[in-house]
């Protein structure tokens, strides 16, 4: 089982979209951690982990996510998860993982969120 990661930066929204494809497990977690770290180092306001094509996640993977969420929050940014498959969702539910982490069930929710955020920024300006 392998993991492929693609990073898509949306400068408009100061958003990094990290697509996690395959399996996030003990074997793949260390490399993913580095990649995610690189993304986080850019300190985007929002980093979204797109799990549309994530088939598998173990506690090793969750550990990386937990760590990244803390790091993002400390930097005043946010880490969010999107498009979790049901069985991935189940794992998160079991672990009652990070109730304060934003979770987007699908892209529409994410888009709605981004729009709302943008409007908010505009109105503030």
């Amino acid at each position, binding site marked *: *089982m392998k993991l492929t990661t693609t990073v898509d930066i949306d400068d408009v929204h100061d958003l990094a979209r990290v697509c996690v494809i395959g399996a996030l497990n003990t074997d793949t977690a260390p490399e993913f951690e580095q990649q995610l770290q690189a993304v986080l180092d850019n300190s985007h306001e929002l980093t979204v982990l797109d799990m549309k094509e994530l088939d598998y996640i*173990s*506690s090793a993977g969750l550990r990386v996510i937990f760590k990244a*969420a*803390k790091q993002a929050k400390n930097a005043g940014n946010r880490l969010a998860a999107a498009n979790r498959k049901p069985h991935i969702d189940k794992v998160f539910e079991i672990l009652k*993982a*990070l109730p304060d982490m934003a979770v987007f069930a699908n892209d529409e929710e994410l888009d709605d969120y981004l729009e709302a955020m943008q409007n908010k920024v505009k109105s503030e300006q």
Partner: protein
Amino acid sequence: MTNTITGKLIAVLTLCLAGIHGASVYTDYQLSRAEILERVRLESLDTVNAVVNDLEYWLDGVQDSTKLLARILTQNKFSPPELNQLLANVLIDQDEIYGATIALNPDFEGNPRGFAPYYYRKNGGITYVDLAEDGREYWQKDWYTRAVAAAKPVWIEPYFDAGGGEILMTTFSVPIYHSNAQGLRSLYAVITADVALEKLHTYLQQLRLGPSGRSILISRGGIVLSSDRHDAIVQNYLEALSAPQDRDVWQRSFEATLRGETLVFPIQCPARLGQCSTRISTLTSTGWPVAVLYSQDEVLSPLRSYGTKTIFIGLATLLLMALAISLISRRLTKPLVALADASDSMAQGQLEVPLPRVKGKDEIARLVQSFGAMQRDLKSYIADLEVATAGKARLEGELAAATQIQMSMLPQGGEALQESGQYSLWAKVRPAKSVGGDLYTFYQHGDEELRIVVGDVSDKGVPAALFMAKAISHIQQFEEEFQSPSRGVALLNNALEKGNDNCMFVTLFFGVINLHSLEMKFSSAGHTAPSLFRAGVVTAVNQETGPALGLAEDMSYPENTLQLAQGDRLAIYTDGIDEAFNDSAEMFGVERFNTQLQKTGEHKIAQAGQAIFQQIDTFAGDMPQSDDITLMLVDILSTLEYLSTRHNFSCNADKPGSACDWLNKLLEEQSVDNSLAMELVLVTEEIMTNIQKYAQLPAGADIELQVNANSDRVELVFTDAGIHFDPFKDSHRAHLGSDIDSAEVGGLGVHLITRLTDRQNYQRSNNKNIVRLEKFFSSFDK
């Protein structure tokens, strides 16, 4: 010696004869003793009487002569020459008289000088002396005065006659009186007759009883007249004869004798050791006591010598008798001894040993003849026996081979123990004879079916064994066609019915256990219902049965179903068990069997089976086994997994995920639902990670993953040789539901494991950690 008849015969006969002989000798001795004693008494008496009579006769003669002379002198007066003549004639006539005198009274008719002519014997002749010579006053002498004093004839105490005979003597003095014209009596003379003590002594010393015998004559005045001791003569008897201690008895006896009694009293023997007797009495004529001393031992010596002789002769006779008995006994028992030796040899197998030759027709001869007949019979009997034994040995050898062949027809040779993951099976046949008609067999058809058969052919022994062999071979023949027990049993029935003119039959239990579902389908051809041990309780399994096999063709057999479960023990047996009898003619029975099955329920299967056999044997006691016995026990251990596979992963060389990859692939192959597969892989990863982190496995050590699956559930078993590590207790568990700020980064894995599986178990065994996780399909929520 007393161990042999000869010895006993000799001992017993000798003892008996010694007793009889001893008794008769003793009786004879007693009788003879009385006779001898009487004879000795009479002889002694005769001796004493003879001597005393002689003495009496002699003294009587002395007295009579003197008295006759006195009568003559009383009637007439004689001149001195006539007196001399008279005296001389007395001495001539009477040898016993030593000397005689006629002493005239000097006062009679004026003869003051006196006149006393005395004739006595001297140097073989007769010598004369006048006692009045030289003016001797003879009338002063004792022999004169005492006769005058007594005025009758008296015996004078012994004295030495000085001036007369010049010897020791005693004198018989008789006074003679003449009457004058006026009728006045006056003493005319005293006439005497002297008796020499020596003469008396000569007479008396003839009286001797035994070598130590003595005889003593004593005057009435106590003076010894005659004794074997010369110094005692004329002495007082008390001083001269008796030892001081005997004086009293002497004196008493002496005085009694003077009164006319005859006494016998014991005294110390004077000349030898021992007791002597003294018999004392008086002479009739003179009144002198005469004592006879004798030693009892000497007198009784004839008796003693008779006793000695009797004992000697008795012993000699006894010896001779013992010798004779010994010879006769040996002669009688000689053939018996020879016969005993011969029988010893025969007992050692030497049947040709010669028997002793015995003549005649007595008991021993008959015994030897009988023995000879027995010897001949024994020879022929042993010859027969050898033939019979050889035949029997051959038969036994054949039967042993048959037993072996028959047992080899049964799985594992008559006592089987088979264990697999799903079941344990134990079975045992014990024929009542060398071969029997009971059978069992079992085999696994593919992986999924266990087929078991227990059967019991009618009757037992060789016919049953042959029919059993036929049944077994048919079972093997039809192995592939036994999908359903009812069909299998029907097929077997038709096969066994063919050519079964003897109408042998088999009762049979045929069961097929599906190892996945644990359902048993079975058919029974008139066989005893099996018993089932489940959760501590034994019940007889309900069954519908068909007829026994081999009697009629085309019979149908109902098919029964029994759902078995893990932990069950099924017992199938033949009627040899429930119909085992004890010596009170009680049957072991189904109830007792079920009780034993229940009691041994917790034992291992082979132990339980052996224990039940043992119980049957204990119950039967000494009663021989009446029928073949077969018992088959089947333990249901688990259901058969559809999948069971394992793989080892190196702790270092393989990435933790390699186990997940392997499992994922396996589950894909088995078409396991993706989501379920993901969950199983997830818990596998979590466990493997935990082990690698915490079990401190050395480099290169393996972790084994075993996957078992059946229709109900999947089981994952992880085994490692690390330190004790129980992931469910020793792992850190993160607090769940925390915010990002407070959330822990680790400790999530164990939550996933416990939530995603239905049963978790940790076990430390053989220094290994064994983690077992189970997931039931029924609980999986897609």
